[in-house]
C-alpha cells in the first residue's frame, strides 16, 4: 500500500531524484564552486547549472524545463559548454558535483540553440497572429531572442493534423506542438491522471491520448493543467467568447455573469502586472463596461453550497452516529469538476461518497434562471448565464446534460480568466488597472498537498435558524470529533483515495475536500500562463488579504442566503426544491473508452 507521502508518479527514477540523492555519492551538504561566464559562485553540490545561473542572473533559455515538473532534458535549448566535456550539456539536467567551468554563449552554444529553434520552427505550423498564445509564447520569444528572421530548414505550408475540438474544455492543435512533453509530464507526474503519452519514434513521434482517441472520449478530467504548462499554442481552452459577445450584442438577451474569486487574483498577469495584484473591483467594473447586464459574485452560491453540503453532511453523520445505519462516509466535496470527473473515471465505486450538492457555479445558474428570473420578471429563456472561472473543467461541467434543472441550461458558457482578459482588452486596451473604479466584491484559498484536521465538538449551538428544523435534538453531536482532510492536486487525490481503499487514515475521515488542481482554484487550468509555485503563492496572498478584510465570516449569516431561503427555498436546505435545483447525480464512467 502506498503511503500518503509516497511519490507514485510514472516518471523514470533518474528524472525524479535529481538533482540530489545519488545513492552512495554523499554529495549532500558539500559545497562546490561553479564558474559561469567568468562569474564564480559556491553552491550546494547537486544544484543544477540552470539553478546556479538563475541565482546569479545569467539567462539560459529553457523550453522543456518547468519548475513544477520533473526534468526531461529533451528540447536541448538550454545547452551550455562545460569545460572538459566533449559534448554540450543541458543546464536543466546537469547537477554540479565537482567544481566546473561553464560557458553559456559560445559560438557552439549559440549555433546549437539557433539550429534547435530552426528545427522546431520547421515543424511548427501556423501564423503567430492567429494564435491564442501570440505575445505569450515561449517559442516566439526565443525566436526573437535568437534573431530568427527566416526559416533555415523550411516552414510547413499545410497542417499535418486535425485540430481536436472534441472536448468541451480543451482544444489540441498538434501542429503547434514542439514535443517538449510538458503536457505529458503534467498529466502523468503532476496530476497522475495519465491521459497523454508519446507515441511512435523519431519525427513521427506525437503526443497522443489512449489509442489516439479524441480528447473528449478519453479519461481526461479537463483540469487544464497542461494548458498552463504548454509553451506554445498547442493546447488551449475551448473559447466561447464569440458566443458570449453575440449574447451581449443581442438586445433581447439579459446576460448575467458570475465571477469566481480566483480570477480576480490572476487576471492582472494577463495585463503585464506582477502576480499577486488583485483586480477585484477593476475587473468588476470592466465587466459592466463589456456589456454584461449583471455582475455577481460566485461567493454567494459558495455560501449556498456550504449550507446545502453542510446539511447533507449533518444528515449523513446523524444516520451514522445516531441511527447507526450504513451511510457513505467520508463525504467528498463536489465543487471541483475536474475532481468529480476523475472520481467518476477512476473510483466510480465511491460515487455515493460525493456530495450531491452542485458546485457553486451550477447552483448560481439554477438560481438565476428560477428565482432571479421570477423576482426580476424576466423570461428565463432570455437569460444567458456566463461563469467566469479560473478553471477549464467548468466548461465541461456546465455542458453536462443533467445540468438543466431550471428547465434551461443552468450555465450557458464558462469563461476562463484568460478569455475574460481577452474580452476586457477589446474594451479598454491593456491598461486595465488605471481605467476603472472600484466596485464591490469578495474572496478562496489554495495550497498543494494533503492536510488533516480534527475538530472536537465540545458544545453544540447556537444552531442557526436555517438549520433548526433539521433535528429536534442536536445533542448527539456533542463530544463527537469531526475528522476532516483536504487534498489539492489530483495526484494527492489519488493518494487519499488509495488510502481510503486500503482502510488507512483517510477512511476514518468524515469529510474530505478535493481539488483537482495543485494550488486549488488559484492554480486552475483557466488561469493565466505561465504558472509556477511562486506565482500561485503570490495569487494566494492577494486573495487571503481580501478574505481577511471581509466582515461576514459564516455562510448562514450572509443576508442574501437568508433571503433566498425565506423567499424561495422556503422548505430549507436539502428540501424537495433545493434537491431539484441545487443537487445533482453523477455518472460512473470507469476507464472504458467510448
Amino acid at each position, binding site marked *: 500500500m502506498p503511503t500518503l507521502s509516497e511519490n507514485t508518479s*510514472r516518471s*523514470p*527514477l*533518474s*528524472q525524479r*531524484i*535529481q538533482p540530489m540523492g*545519488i*545513492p*552512495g*555519492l554523499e554529495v549532500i551538504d558539500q559545497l562546490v564552486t561553479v564558474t559561469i561566464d567568468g562569474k564564480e559562485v559556491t553552491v550546494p553540490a547537486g544544484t543544477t547549472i540552470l539553478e546556479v545561473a538563475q541565482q546569479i542572473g545569467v539567462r539560459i533559455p529553457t523550453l522543456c524545463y518547468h519548475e513544477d515538473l520533473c*526534468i526531461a*532534458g*529533451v*528540447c*536541448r*535549448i538550454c*545547452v551550455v559548454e562545460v569545460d572538459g566535456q566533449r*559534448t*554540450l550539456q*543541458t543546464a536543466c*539536467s*546537469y*547537477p554540479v*558535483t565537482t567544481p566546473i567551468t561553464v560557458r553559456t554563449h559560445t559560438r*557552439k552554444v549559440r*549555433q*546549437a540553440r539557433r*539550429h*534547435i529553434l530552426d*528545427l*522546431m520552427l*520547421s*515543424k511548427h505550423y501556423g501564423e503567430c497572429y492567429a494564435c491564442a498564445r501570440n505575445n505569450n509564447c515561449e517559442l516566439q520569444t526565443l525566436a526573437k531572442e535568437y534573431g530568427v528572421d527566416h526559416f*533555415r*530548414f523550411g516552414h510547413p505550408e499545410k497542417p499535418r493534423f486535425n485540430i481536436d475540438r472534441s472536448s468541451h474544455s480543451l482544444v489540441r492543435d498538434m501542429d503547434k506542438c*514542439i*514535443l517538449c512533453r510538458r503536457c505529458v509530464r503534467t498529466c502523468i507526474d503532476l496530476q497522475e491522471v495519465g491521459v497523454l503519452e*508519446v507515441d*511512435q*519514434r*523519431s*519525427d*513521427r*513521434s506525437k503526443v497522443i491520448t489512449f489509442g489516439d482517441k479524441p480528447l473528449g472520449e478519453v479519461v481526461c478530467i479537463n483540469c487544464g493543467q497542461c494548458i498552463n504548462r504548454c509553451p506554445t499554442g498547442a493546447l488551449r481552452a475551448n473559447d466561447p467568447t464569440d458566443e458570449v459577445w453575440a449574447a451581449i450584442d443581442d438586445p433581447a438577451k439579459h446576460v448575467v455573469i458570475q465571477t469566481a474569486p480566483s480570477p480576480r487574483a490572476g487576471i492582472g498577469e494577463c495585463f503585464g502586472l506582477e502576480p499577486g495584484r488583485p483586480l477585484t473591483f477593476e475587473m468588476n467594473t470592466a465587466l459592466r463596461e463589456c456589456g454584461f447586464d449583471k455582475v455577481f459574485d460566485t461567493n454567494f452560491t459558495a455560501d449556498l453550497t456550504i449550507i446545502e453540503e453542510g446539511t447533507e453532511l449533518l444528515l449523513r453523520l446523524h444516520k451514522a452516529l445516531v441511527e447507526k445505519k450504513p451511510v457513505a462516509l467520508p463525504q467528498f466535496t463536489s465543487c471541483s469538476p475536474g475532481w468529480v470527473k476523475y472520481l467518476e473515471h477512476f473510483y466510480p465505486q465511491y460515487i455515493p461518497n460525493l456530495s450531491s450538492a452542485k458546485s457553486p457555479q451550477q447552483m448560481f445558474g439554477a438560481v438565476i434562471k428560477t428565482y432571479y428570473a421570477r423576482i426580476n420578471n424576466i423570461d428565463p429563456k432570455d437569460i444567458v448565464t456566463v461563469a467566469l472561472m479560473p478553471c477549464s473543467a467548468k466548461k465541461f461541467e456546465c455542458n453536462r446534460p443533467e445540468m438543466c434543472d431550471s428547465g434551461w441550461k443552468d450555465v450557458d458558457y464558462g469563461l476562463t480568466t484568460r478569455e475574460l482578459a481577452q474580452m476586457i482588452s477589446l474594451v479598454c486596451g491593456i491598461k486595465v488597472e488605471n481605467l476603472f473604479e472600484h466596485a464591490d466584491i469578495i474572496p478562496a484559498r489554495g495550497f498543494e498537498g494533503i492536510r488533516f484536521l480534527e475538530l472536537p465538538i465540545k458544545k453544540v449551538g447556537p444552531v442557526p435558524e436555517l438549520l433548526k428544523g433539521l433535528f429536534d435534538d442536536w445533542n448527539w453531536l456533542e463530544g463527537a470529533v469531526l475528522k476532516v482532510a483536504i487534498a489539492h492536486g489530483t495526484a494527492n487525490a489519488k493518494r487519499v483515495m488509495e488510502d481510503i481503499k486500503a482502510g488507512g487514515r483517510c477512511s476514518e475521515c468524515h469529510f474530505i475536500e478535493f481539488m483537482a488542481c495543485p494550488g486549488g482554484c488559484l492554480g486552475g487550468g483557466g488561469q493565466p500562463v505561465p504558472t509556477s509555485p511562486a506565482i500561485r503563492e503570490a495569487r494566494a496572498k492577494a486573495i487571503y488579504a481580501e478574505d481577511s478584510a471581509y466582515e461576514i465570516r459564516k455562510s448562514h449569516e450572509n443576508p442574501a442566503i437568508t433571503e433566498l431561503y425565506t423567499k424561495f427555498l422556503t422548505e430549507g436546505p436539502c428540501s424537495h426544491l433545493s434537491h431539484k435545483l441545487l443537487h445533482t447525480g453523477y455518472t460512473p464512467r470507469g476507464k472504458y473508452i467510448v
Partner: protein
Amino acid sequence: MKPENNFIMLFFHKKALGMKPEEIIRLVAESGLKGRGGAGFPTDIKWKLAAAVKDDLKYVVCNADEGEPGTFKDRVILTDFADLMFDGMTIGARAIGACKGIVYLRGEYTYLRGFLKGKLSERRKNGLLGSNILGTEGFNFDIEIRMGAGAYVCGEETALIESLEGQRGEPRNRPPFPVNTGFLGHPTIVNNVETFTWVPCIVSKGAKWFNDIGTEKSTGLKLFSVSGDCGKHGVFEFPMGITLRELLEKVDGTGAKAVQAGGASGRCIPASEFDRTIAFEDVPTGGSIIVIGQGRDMLKVAENFMEFFVDESCGQCTPCREGNAKLLEGIELLQKGRCSMKYLRELCSLGETMQLASKCGLGQSSPNAFLSIVRNFKDEIMGRTEKTL
C-alpha cells in the same frame, strides 16, 4: 562440457573467485580493456565506480542488443561462447558486489533465448550461479534473460535500462550515470557481450598477454563483423591497431572505394586513408566493417544510413528527431542536384550541432556517415541532375 574441460573451468573459476574484488578490477585495469560496444569506455573505471557505491542491490547487465547495422559478432559469442560471457558477467558481479545479472537480448535473437536459458540452468546445476558460488562464502549471483523489442536505441545503456524497467526505451539524462543510478535506481554496470567475454580470457591468460597486443591506448584483440564488397564475409578476430589496409587484405577487400567502420553510426573512411588504424584513438568501431566497392554510389550509401536513423531516433530530443530527417531531405536534394553549396554547408553545420547537442550517442553519432561522405566524396555527390538518377 566434457569432464576434463569441467576440471579446467573449475580451476579457472576458483582462480577468478579467489581474487578480491579490487584485485579483479586492478587486473582489468592492467589489461587496458575498453568497452567493446564501440564507445571504448575503460571497463575498469566503470566497474570501480559501481564498486565504490554502497548499495545492497547492484546489477550487472549484459548488452546483447546487437543492433548496429553490419554487426553480428555478438551473435557468434552468444551461440558458441556463451559460457565465457556468463563467466565474465559473474566475475564482474564479484568485482562490483552485484547479486543480479540480466542479459538484455536483442528481439531478433529470440531464437537464442531457450539455448541461453539452458546454459544458465546448467551453470546453476554446476554451482556457477546461485548462492555461495563454488563455495565462495557470501557470493550470490544469478542471471536472467530479458528480451528487447527491436529498437536500435535500446542499445544505448540508459535506454536499455529504461526498457528493462518497462518504460519507453529512451535515453536518460547523464549524469547521474548507471554506475550510480541504474536499473531501478541501483548501481548498474552495462557492458557489451564481447567486453564480458574477454574478461575470463584476461583472468586466465593474464593482463600482460592482453596488454601486449594492440596499441598503447587500445589493447587486446577484437572481433570484427565484416560485410560488403569483399571476398570473405564473417566474424574475424584481429588485434586492435590493425590498419584498414591490412584488414582489407585479410578479407579480400583490397581495391575498395571506402570502408564504413563502426556501422551506421561510424565513419566512412575513403581509400586514401586506408593506412589509418582501427583503435579508439583513431578509427573507433564496435566491430562493424562494411566494405564499399568501387561500383557503389556514395549518396546511396549515405541515404541508406540516414534512412536508418530517421527510423530509429527515439524522437525525444530535438536535434536528433528533426535533424536526421533534415539530413535525409538534404540527400534527396543532392540526388536531384537541387542542394546549393550554401544549404549543404548549413546541413553540415546542423550535423555538428547534432553531434554536440543530442541527448545520447545515437544522435551524437548519426550525422557521422553523412558528414564524412560529404567531406570525402564531395566531387561524387555534387552536381547531379535528375537524369543521372
